[in-house]
């Protein structure tokens, strides 16, 4: 009979002080889940530790420092890489991890989740002031004990899969152990000043620190009577990330995905100048916005007029343009602040099959078109801004659509009439196969 055990793995590349921060020049955390005759239960993998915020002056009480209430501790993970420990081959890599999470999390968790169990494990909150007050300014975060403890899952294709991951040696039917690498985000993209100042005393020397970091997980010892084949395959849903920018009324995005079983794509947008800006929330989502035109400081929303997706230059999977409400000739519709329901529905459906979506934070209040200035975009209710575009390719068979030899494309017509570069993060949800044998591991994309 098989049985399970708990393991706790500390970082392999850090000193015993257990303090890790981007500021101190060690932004990479490595965990080795060694080669062993056991299987890793991917869904049980958790990153555990304590989170602290420091600034130049002693106290954080009443501070205007903030971090993303939507992402909480996930905002410190810039990229997640999982390799075979034996061969160092990359099994899965998700860059722009917090950007991916800023789409995934609000779509798949409700307001009550974010105020409750996710707040407990990941330091999120349903409201920005509540998060600032209870996490960033937590009086004990820099104290003798405790503070902001966290214990988060690392959502990715490999760990989200249903099958246990064989940790055995390459020739014994396993991947040869796992090497999990977490690249930390820069302080300037995690912490920001609520008032929009990038040079105030509050923010200029502020940084975060992790301590007592480890990975906990469950492993399963297989039934000894079961023969494990020396070579095998392992199928999982992976996330691939892409990045580009646009700065016109007609945003045309093209990528050669090189993936053969694409289930869906989703992307989110932020004004490029907000990234790594201590006066801005570099992890917020918003629809495109214009630059402010003097003397006004308002960064007007650039409403989407039309949207369609292509495969090899043809409209696919929707064989028509999504002409939004704002494309109307009627002035009152053109100024409507709510994105077309088709955009929102397709975005949700790309992340989780819409008909199975039971809990979500999406509401008219956090998806609406707003200006891009910090006093507006950073104070949205119901867990923060949830904006994005996307489309699902296969919610029926689960086998996906072949983009290995044809280009993926998106055409978006919007009101971006000023010079204001928009960063577009694209995430592709695809089925991949991990093959392992005595020769090592390989990923069939």
């Amino acid at each position, binding site marked *: *009979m*098989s*049985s*399970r*055990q*708990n*393991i*706790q793995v500390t970082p392999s590349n850090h000193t015993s002080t257990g303090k890790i921060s981007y500021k101190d020049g060690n932004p990479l955390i490595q965990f080795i889940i060694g080669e062993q005759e056991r299987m890793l239960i991917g869904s*049980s993998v*958790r990153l*555990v*530790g*304590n989170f602290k915020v420091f600034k130049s002056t*002693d*106290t954080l009480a009443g501070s205007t420092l903030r971090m993303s209430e939507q992402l909480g501790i996930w905002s410190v993970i810039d990229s997640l890489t999982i390799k075979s420990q034996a061969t160092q081959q990359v099994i899965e890599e998700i860059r722009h991890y917090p950007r991916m999470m800023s789409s995934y999390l609000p779509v798949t968790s409700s307001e*009550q*989740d974010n*105020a*409750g*169990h996710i*707040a*407990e*494990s990941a*330091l999120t*909150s*349903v*409201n*920005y*002031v*509540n998060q600032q*007050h*209870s*996490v960033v300014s*937590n*009086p*004990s975060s*820099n*104290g*003798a*004990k*405790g*503070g*902001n*403890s*966290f*214990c988060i899952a690392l959502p990715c294709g490999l760990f989200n899969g249903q099958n246990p991951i064989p940790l055995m040696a390459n020739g014994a039917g396993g991947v040869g152990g796992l090497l999990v690498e977490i690249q930390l985000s820069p302080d300037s993209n995690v912490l920001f000043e609520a008032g929009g100042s990038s040079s105030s005393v509050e923010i200029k020397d502020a940084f975060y620190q992790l301590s*007592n970091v*480890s990975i*906990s997980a*469950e492993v399963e010892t297989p039934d000894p009577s079961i023969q494990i084949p020396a070579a095998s395959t392992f199928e999982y849903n992976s996330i691939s990330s892409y990045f580009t920018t646009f700065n016109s009324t007609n945003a045309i995005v093209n990528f050669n995905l090189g993936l053969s079983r694409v289930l869906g794509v989703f992307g989110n947008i932020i004004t490029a100048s907000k990234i790594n800006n201590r006066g801005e929330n570099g992890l917020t989502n918003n629809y495109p916005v214009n630059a402010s035109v003097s003397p006004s400081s308002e960064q007007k929303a650039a409403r989407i007029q039309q949207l369609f997706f292509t495969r090899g230059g043809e409209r696919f999977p929707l064989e028509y343009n999504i002409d939004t409400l704002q494309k109307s000739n009627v002035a009152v519709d053109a100024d409507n602040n709510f994105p077309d329901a088709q955009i929102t529905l397709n975005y949700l459906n790309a992340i989780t099959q819409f008909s199975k979506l039971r809990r979500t934070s999406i509401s008219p209040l956090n998806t609406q078109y707003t200006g891009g200035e910090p*006093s*507006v975009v950073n*104070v*949205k*209710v119901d867990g923060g801004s949830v904006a994005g575009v996307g489309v699902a390719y296969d919610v029926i068979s689960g086998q996906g659509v072949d983009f290995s030899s044809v280009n993926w494309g998106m055409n978006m017509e919007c009101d971006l009439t000023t010079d204001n570069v928009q960063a577009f993060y694209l995430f592709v949800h695809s089925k991949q196969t991990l093959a392992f044998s005595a020769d090592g591991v390989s990923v069939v994309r």
Partner: protein
Amino acid sequence: MSDNLIIIKISLSFFKIIFFIIIYFNIIKYMSYSTSSDQSQMMASDSKAAQAPGATVPDLVRIGQIPTNTAIDIETDVLDPVVHSDTFCRFQFQNKGILHSNSKIVLRLNTNSGTDKVGFLPVGVGIHSLIERCSLRVGTKTISEIDDFNHYIGYKSMFLSNEQQKQRELFISGRRLAHKPYYNEGGTDWSGSDNTLQTEAKFLGLDNGAAVDCERDEATATVDVRNFCEVNDKFGPEFAVSIQDLFPFLYQNQLPLFMMKEPVTIELFFSKAVGERCCMNTVNAGSNDTAFTIDQSATELVADYQYFPQEMMEQYAQQNADLSFTFMDYRLAKRSIAVSASGSEASTGQLIMNVGGAGRLVTKVISAVSDDSDKTNSMLQNYHARGMKRIYSGTESARRNGELTTNIKYNDHFLYPVDVTNSAQQFHNLVQAEGMVPFIAREEYNFEGQGITPGTYEGHPQNNQHQGLVNNFFYQAYKLNRNERINSRGLELYNTYDMFANRTDSPNTMTQRSYLELIRVAQLRDGIMDVFFA
């Protein structure tokens, strides 16, 4: 001659092969029945077999979809208790049909005259606060029993979603632990920009469906109990308890009463009328001698019996003359922990508590500590799980959130390779053990941050650990995942409590409760129920 011998040999070999194939399949069939640890799966496989031609009887007692278009008749009986006092009551079912697991027991409290006698049901457990122990008996055998049930249900109630608590449980059982952000808006202080007024919510607080009277800084936000949860001179709250909450195995199985020859009874042992049933507002909380008695004229069991077509039930009874199923039962172990007077509290040091389970299959251990001095003068009553003391004032180096260091040892090995001190990881272990997430706020679990409103509920500040919500849901749960039977030494719980806060200036006690989830087997043979440990 030699050709004939070869033919005979081949024939013998052929018959040997056939013989071994038949033996093999019989062994496989036998093993699939006799070695399955999950008898309910066994029953499921029976039902599949029953779908074969000539055997069309689905599994009627297993909760789930029945693969047939069968009309079900439901008959509801309202049963009065056969014995009833203010401390005990007993119901006896009629042995007919199949008992629906969501049958309800209705309980009501008497009115109390005098404004200083006003009380309300605890926020976390509602009417369940009345039940100290419940047991289900068949004949003279106890099938399921939970001691300190009101504490156990405090743990289970955490896993009800906020939506369910607010929209259903508030009206069914009086449980009402739902939250919402308290936005900075209100009629008494309408100032500032619209933007600020509509988006800032510094705190979370209770959401019982009523408007929150609050101002800009939320400090004075007040919520009062809904009238139907209150005991006063005109009204005593009446709510219902589901029998599947009382006996959790009924979530998976239903009792085929029509096949049982012995009397089936439910016994409820009530908590003390003084100091254990209700909470009181801060004005009256000093009147701890107020008795909240049960209105015995209202107590009844609303039993739903299901009937399938008669021939189907008869066939089912014939095919399952020897029926068995496994189920989870809970055993309580408790001890007290001394706490020094307020201001001189100290760590308990490592406490090793043997919680039993020797020789048993134990799948889970649930553990909680309650403060014996926090009863009527709080909004959760004594049905809470207290966490460690925190210090949020003074110098930065003096501030701290207390830690619990915990592990559990059985069969000479610890469950966790390193003792767990990180409270978020303890929360994760709780989730893993239960397979569900609790819907409680962060400060309510591990007392970290200041996210719960200082606003009051019946005068009790919600962010006060003795009176309110915070630091009162620090439940621990351990999933014993090694698939091992516990040896004769039993389970040893290793806990180091890094300082509990004492409300009083004199030494106090806490009570630690540990519930063991054990696997038991019930067997119904020729109408006689038997039960034993797996």
